[in-house]
């Protein structure tokens, strides 16, 4: 949903700005590149930080309050292997696929705006997009998503484990995980941008 809107918004802005230079045909390039490289990974990661990161932190903090983590420790069951690792892995594996899905939906948003506002045909829009977005951009976005997934998973589990033991601490942990997740994703994205610039991508 968000990615659809982002794609549509990009197309709107692109259309109004590019038409000044009589270059509205490049809307597809703009939407495609921006989506694949920046918008889809970051938006998907931010949504997952809010939804899954918060849920991880809340769940683990609740377990902390119910002495469940202590019970694991006493039983000699390593918390990292049984709680943190599966959570981090599943998020890291899911995020890239959600990213691909996000790209697709964003593309659709852009396409619809381009068709209705600029009268570009679906076929030429898709052709233009395919030509504009090289595969390595996809790989780059994919890689970013894996990094975002790791970051959100590890940070939110860590915040959950460090939470206090009262019910109020569960809420605090969830809020903290969302904030840390979103800020972390944006900061990491900035780092990637610098890196990509250096690598000439």
């Amino acid at each position: 949903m968000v990615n659809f809107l982002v794609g549509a918004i990009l197309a709107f802005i692109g259309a109004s700005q590019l038409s000044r230079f009589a270059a509205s045909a490049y809307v597809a390039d703009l939407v495609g590149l921006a989506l694949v490289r920046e918008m889809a990974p970051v938006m998907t990661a931010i949504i997952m930080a809010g939804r899954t990161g918060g849920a991880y932190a809340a769940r683990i903090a609740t377990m902390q309050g119910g002495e469940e983590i202590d019970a694991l420790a006493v039983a000699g069951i390593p918390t990292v292997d049984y709680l943190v690792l599966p959570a981090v892995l599943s998020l890291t594996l899911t995020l890239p696929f959600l990213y691909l899905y996000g790209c697709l939906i964003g593309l659709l948003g852009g396409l619809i705006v381009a068709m209705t506002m600029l009268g570009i045909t679906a076929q030429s829009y898709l052709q233009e997009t395919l030509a504009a977005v090289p595969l390595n951009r996809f790989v780059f976005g994919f890689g970013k998503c894996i990094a975002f997934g790791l970051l959100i998973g590890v940070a939110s589990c860590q915040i959950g484990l460090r939470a206090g033991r009262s019910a109020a601490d569960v809420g605090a942990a969830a809020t903290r995980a969302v904030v840390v997740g979103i800020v972390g994703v944006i900061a990491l994205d900035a780092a990637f941008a610098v890196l990509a610039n250096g690598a000439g991508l």
Partner: protein
Amino acid sequence: MTESALISVSGLTLGYGERVILQALDFTVPRGSIFAIMGGSGCGKSTVMRALVGLLRPQAGRVTVGGEDYWGCDAARRSVIDRGFGVLFQGGALWRALSVGGNVALPLRLFTRLARSDIAPLVRLKLALVGMADAIDCRPSELSGGMRKRAGLARALALEPEVLFLDEPSAGLDPISSRRMDDLIVNLRDGLGATIVMVSHERDSLFGIADDGVFLDAATRTVIARGAPSVLRDTCPDPLVAAFMHRERLQSP
């Protein structure tokens, strides 16, 4: 230290960060006893238990388990010693992601070589022991507080521990369940030969089943009396201990 001492504690200081909760604790838990850690609310009874089961590193002092310096061991050795422990937490601390049966089965699945088909009857047996055989497929969230405690006890018993640590086993239970819990604890000691360390301020069950113990005081932050609760009730000169025990005598029928 006598030969029969299973756990012995000397000069133990416990606290969180700067805050010292208890200091200079000395006591021994005899093998095969039902040892009570007593005291008013907030005097650090559960904190002592956390230090004995490896959840809170003492700031000073020694805990010896079966002759071995517990906190002097590395984490791997400590976790081997922990295998001999069964712990019942205050709220039962069942893992909410698993069913009641799953909770009892998890330690068996991880730490024994038993086949899945052998574990199932064992789980039923442990649950039957605490009168929870019907609840095997329930989720922890569906249980009442007392049932959670009993299920937690079944889980603590899963690996046939040598020492059972019980944090307030009968607190919050109705008189009948509380009495049943007491009987169960005595049965476990007599039947399995387990040593039981329990944190409690339920005077009925203290007098009924505990045969040794220590009394902690929040003001002086240390042990102020030692011995079986029923003996302390009759002979302890300390006014606080006497008051604690005395109020009980007024209440009991």
